[in-house]
């Protein structure tokens, strides 16, 4: 059984034909991608390769997959990884309750042959009894989908190896059934926070995208988009403050979503400028640890 490579479909090729276009379309979905991100998404779609997205928390790694799904009009299939996840949660599982029921029901019928079941599992190993988990679902779905494997660095190295077949060959081998080939090649995004070195084998199969905190200019745009009421001057100051905080050695630097939270607060308060009192309010929104808040306010106060 050889896996026939499936041609990446035309709609997709058209949609992702170049980086600029992807960037614009993602923008329409409310995701402001930089040139590089858009370029890599376009490249991945055209090469049919998964994208491994790494970067600090809160830079929009998961959101990128969601927005790409929305932009392409595809369903998002999400696999949330955690320590201890195994193939029965990620790939497939036999629905043994159904199998039991089937055996019980079939026992009374005339053609029932218990020996055949013992010998080759006749009847009970059938796709009817196969529960698709996200990875199998992504390649067996009737319409093409976007597969998001979230926080892949949390799975054990052994489980990671199970993903390789799906990522590279777009197939799943079920010992009792043989090989299940993809109906469509999904667009795959894997996200990682870099807590563990992923295996070379996995990395080799992916394109690598590092999503860092946005540049000040792009972050201003993001703020403008989410909180249109804020004056440009204020959003500039806000973004510059966040930028300064990110350069400090903090336990949890502010992420983009926290910038937006702060912008919304300022908008509600009707502030017109960022003085030290609103800034210290901001620290409480932007930072999550008391130590960080203390360190940041000390640093901001000192340099006055």
């Amino acid at each position: 059984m050889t896996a026939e490579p499936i041609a990446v479909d035309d709609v997709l090729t058209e949609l992702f034909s170049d980086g600029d276009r992807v960037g614009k379309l993602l923008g329409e979905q409310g995701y402001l991608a930089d040139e590089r991100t858009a370029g890599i998404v376009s490249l991945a779609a055209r090469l049919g390769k998964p994208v491994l997205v790494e970067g600090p928390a809160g830079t929009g790694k998961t959101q990128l997959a969601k927005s790409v799904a929305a932009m392409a009009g595809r369903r998002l299939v999400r696999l949330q990884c955690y320590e201890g996840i195994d193939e029965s949660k990620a790939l497939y599982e036999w629905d043994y309750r159904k199998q039991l029921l089937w055996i019980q029901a079939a026992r009374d019928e005339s053609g029932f042959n218990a020996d055949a079941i013992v010998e080759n599992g006749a009847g009970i190993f059938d796709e009817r009894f196969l529960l698709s988990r996200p990875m199998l679902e992504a390649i067996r779905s009737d319409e093409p989908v976007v597969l998001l494997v979230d926080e892949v660095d949390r799975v054990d190295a052994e489980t990671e190896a199970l993903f390789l077949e799906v990522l590279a060959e777009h197939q799943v081998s079920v010992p009792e059934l043989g090989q299940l080939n993809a109906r469509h090649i999904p667009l795959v995004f894997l996200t990682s926070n870099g807590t563990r070195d992923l295996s070379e084998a996995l990395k080799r199969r992916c394109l690598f995208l590092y999503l860092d905190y946005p540049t000040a200019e792009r972050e201003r745009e993001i703020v403008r988009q989410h909180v249109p009421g804020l004056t440009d001057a204020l959003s500039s100051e806000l973004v510059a403050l966040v930028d300064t905080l990110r350069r400090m050695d903090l336990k949890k630097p502010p992420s983009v979503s926290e910038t937006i939270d702060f912008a919304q607060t300022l908008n509600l308060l009707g502030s017109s400028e960022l003085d030290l009192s609103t800034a210290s309010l901001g620290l409480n929104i932007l930072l999550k640890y008391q130590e960080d808040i203390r360190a940041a306010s000390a640093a901001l106060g000192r340099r006055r």
Partner: protein
Amino acid sequence: MTAIRTPLLERIHRFADELRTRGLPISMVERIDAMRAVETVGLNVPNGLHLALSATLVKAAEHRGVFDEVFQLYFRSEAGAGVTWSDLDDDDAEDADGTGAAGTVGAFGLAPDQTPLDLDHALRTALRDGSEVLARLIAEQAVLQFSRFEPGRPVAGVLYESRTIEGLRLEQVRAEIAREVTEGSGGASGNGAAGGAGGGGSGSELGLQLRRQEVADRANSLRQQIREVIREQLVADRGLDAVTETLRTPLPADADISMANRDQLAEIERAMKPLERKLATTMMRKRRQRNGQLDVRATLRASMATGGVPVKVLHRRPNPTKPQLYVLADMSGSVATFAAFTVTLVSALTQLFSRLRTFAFIENAIELTDLFRENEDPLQTIRAINRLGGPSYLGGHTDYGHALRQFGAEISSELGRRSTVLIFGDGRGNYLPSEEATLVDISRRAGAVYWLNPEARPLWGTGDSLMHVYARHCTEAVSCRTLNDLRRFIEDLD
């Protein structure tokens, strides 16, 4: 798709070779992917080449720095010197070697008849308004004027860089502009310009501070530009291969920990995160029981294959046994940088192991377990150690024998098969007695004793080093100079 022509193809191959030489894991698969990606992206997309190559050849965040540096050398330096990489893709392009080609073109993009800028004025404008183009022009002219470039010398250009920065009076001008911006006197002048948005007109303290930060950023980016111009000139002068050779900065994982500067240490620390976890899991895996609890769910599921008869009994994975860990760390001046690394590693271990006791010593071994527990951040830990009185608290002269005896007295009654002892230090004992017997005793009681030494193995036993004596009694004594050494040590534990 555009087919890539041979010169560019070869250049990409040589580029990949260079990345491999520097330690990036690049296999045949990555090369093929890189070619396909370049073809797919096409050559007329701005930054397309960088995009295609970086997405396929770089697979770890900490490798990006090296990638960009080499990319600049291979695909940009010559662009600055008049050759662009799309020329390489022309039919009649010169040999892909590049060495000959670049040399013949003028050293700079700056044509000789171009009117020179008033550097001081231009610099002030650039720092106020932040124009990238202007910064590049300043960099080019400043290097020409101040670097006193000596053709043919095999250098990395650090001297040229400092001469240029000095000649430009970059530091002084930056400080002046920062003051000017802060005092707000002429502050409005730089306002409203493209991207220059420290804060529209607000005179608040915070706004001023942010604007100062902006000026500092622009100065840094100018510095970067100057470095790039110098590299371009070096390539034009001595050819790509020679310059690549001189400039070969190691990956964070290969950098010598004891010699690392602050930036490198920060990078090393970042690259260390996954290793810490690995060390922890490896240690937990060391002793594993055969079987854990019965897994009813899995057994039932497996029994379906045998018609409901549980032929195969499955067990849960056993809980790993928690090891007891004892750490003894040398904090003396001779291993100062290494000590910072030790503190980082021990901090991480403290978070991961509940049964861990840490001792630090110079002359006296003192238990610092609680201090490590209270301060999650390694930097705070170092500060806390210094607050304790640092060196004077731990004693003045390194005395391994004395410290080992104190360490042994504290822990030897607790040691058992499950305990692991980790010792960090160079084993240089100022010609004082080694107290070998104590280590023998510790080693006999504990399950394992590991010694991580920042010195290279050939130096062990030279001068006042007692390492050759101690090494005999350790389960394993390794020279740990780089992160990769640490990684190998951890992998060998398996």
